[in-house]
């Protein structure tokens, strides 16, 4: 009997998130060609995104649209998705490992008494047909492979690790709107302040410029921000910089904080403590800029510059500006 996997898609800032396409791809890899991959999108308005989800590989698209779903509310989103789950009866539910996915997935795991494998970065199917999910643990110091022992499966997929399927503009899919069940909500979202408007989220950024104690002050992040702006990247920080009060904890990368896997990671004035390295060592290319030639960060960097970040970073910014000019 063929299986049905449900992928919970998300939008941010008016577009579908890249991680949603990656999650469709993950569900397809885990299930194989004969699995029906259905996507579901919850929100205030959802119709505009159906085609794109289809072109990225969804066989069916379900939508639940209601004003209660404009911002994430754990109870409203649970009730809306529960209706879809009851309709679809999926064998597996895949989420992005995002602020929403991290909160919504375990609710369904508990509700269904299901196993959940969180924050996966790779999938392989072994000779017996069993799907093995790789997940970095201890913030990436170790890689664990896990499998499910029972159905249904719940999976969350780390952004930036699984390639989306090639876009196919000729694909079409059945779309089905499902009515919001209008539950009575105990949890009320009073206010949402978008701190990230115009900024790229660290977990999805392709380029990260990170600062450590070597930036010396909150102002010291300015050259890093300028370089990030030129490269279309995000700014991160080490615990040292956060503890010193140079920046918000939301920027912290490491075993406490965020684990990131960008294409390019530029560590500026970061010594390379174990707990920081755990959070960024899976980046594709690492650059370290530090005054101290003995700094441990150089041991894991693809390119190292011993020097003053306040001299080197603005020069780099100039280089990129010139080269990337249209």
């Amino acid at each position, binding site marked *: 009997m063929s299986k049905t996997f449900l992928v919970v898609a998300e939008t941010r800032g008016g577009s579908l998130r890249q991680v949603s396409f990656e999650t469709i791809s993950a569900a397809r890899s885990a299930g194989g060609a004969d699995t029906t991959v259905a996507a579901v999108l919850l929100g205030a308005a959802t119709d505009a995104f159906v085609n794109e989800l289809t072109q990225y590989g969804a066989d069916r698209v379900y939508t639940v649209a209601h004003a209660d779903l404009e911002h994430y509310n754990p109870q409203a989103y649970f009730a809306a998705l529960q209706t879809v789950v009851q309709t679809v009866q999926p064998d597996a539910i895949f989420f992005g490992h995002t602020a929403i996915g991290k909160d919504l997935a375990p609710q369904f795991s508990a509700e269904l008494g299901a196993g959940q494998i969180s924050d996966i970065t790779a999938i392989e199917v072994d000779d017996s047909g069993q799907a093995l999910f790789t997940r*970095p643990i201890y913030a990436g110091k170790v890689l*664990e492979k896990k499998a499910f022992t029972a159905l249904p499966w719940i999976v969350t997929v780390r952004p930036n690790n699984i390639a989306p399927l090639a876009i196919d503009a000729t694909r079409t899919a059945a779309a089905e709107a499902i009515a919001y069940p209008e539950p009575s909500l105990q949890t009320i979202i009073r206010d949402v302040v978008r701190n990230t408007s115009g900024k790229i989220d660290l977990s999805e950024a392709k380029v990260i410029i990170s600062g450590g104690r070597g930036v010396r002050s909150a102002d010291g992040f300015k050259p890093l921000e300028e370089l990030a702006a030129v490269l279309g990247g995000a700014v991160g920080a080490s615990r040292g910089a956060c503890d010193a009060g140079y920046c918000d904890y939301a920027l912290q990368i490491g075993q406490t904080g965020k684990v990131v896997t960008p294409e390019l990671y530029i560590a500026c004035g970061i010594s390379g403590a174990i707990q920081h390295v755990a959070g960024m060592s899976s980046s594709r290319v690492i650059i370290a800029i530090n005054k101290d030639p003995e700094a441990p960060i150089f041991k894991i960097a693809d390119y190292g510059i011993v020097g003053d970040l306040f001299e080197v970073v603005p020069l780099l910014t100039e280089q990129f500006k010139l080269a990337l000019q249209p």
Partner: protein
Amino acid sequence: MNIIVLVKQTFDTEEKIVVEQGSVVEDGVKFVINPYDEYAVEQAIQIRDEAGGKVTVVSVGPERAAEALRTALAMGADEAVLINDSRIGHDEHSVAMALHAFVSQEPYDLILGGNFSVDNGAGQVAVRLAKLLSIPHTSSITKLDIAAGSAVAHRDAEGDLETVELPLPALFTAQQGLNEPRYPSLQGIMKAKKKPFRELSLDDLNLDAGTVAPRTERKDLQLPPARQAGKMISGEPAEQAQELFRLLRTEAKVI
């Protein structure tokens, strides 16, 4: 106000990891309270000091986890419970079911935990527990105000700040920035020795092994391929910047 805090004992984040025969080696490792759970303990103590009541810290884990609970008692928690039974699976479903059995038989107004643990990092157990108890929750909070049977919390959602209001009883998970956890005082450490400490098995919780059987299993555990030190770029700052740019374009091909 009865507050239950979910605590896990984890490796110190500065520890290196050694894998032998498919397991992480624990010999000689420094263990701590999971840093995110430490915020939860601190918050619980502050709320109790203001509103009165009792803080109970509970952990599912092996014998060594008692040390983390003792630390929480030394910080100021009132009672500790260690659920220690080898039949509990190494799986978030199993741990949540065991916690659910315990919490269901205790009075509580508020449950606090960490946003995730720095070892397994799945971030499931606390939210699962809220669902199993049918109480509302907010995860990843950086501020919590309790007044007249309801709570207002700030939730950090990938940098966005959400203000959330919900009635008690409710569960919250702590994000960095919620507070500054205290260090146990010498007096606190002395007092902790006399505080109630219960150790419970599945039988004490009226649970059978099937209820806490895992739904997932580990198939493999490996260290990631080690990164090698790369090229050092020398010269004057302007030359270094130029050379780095060239290498990124022609060799690493990231731009």
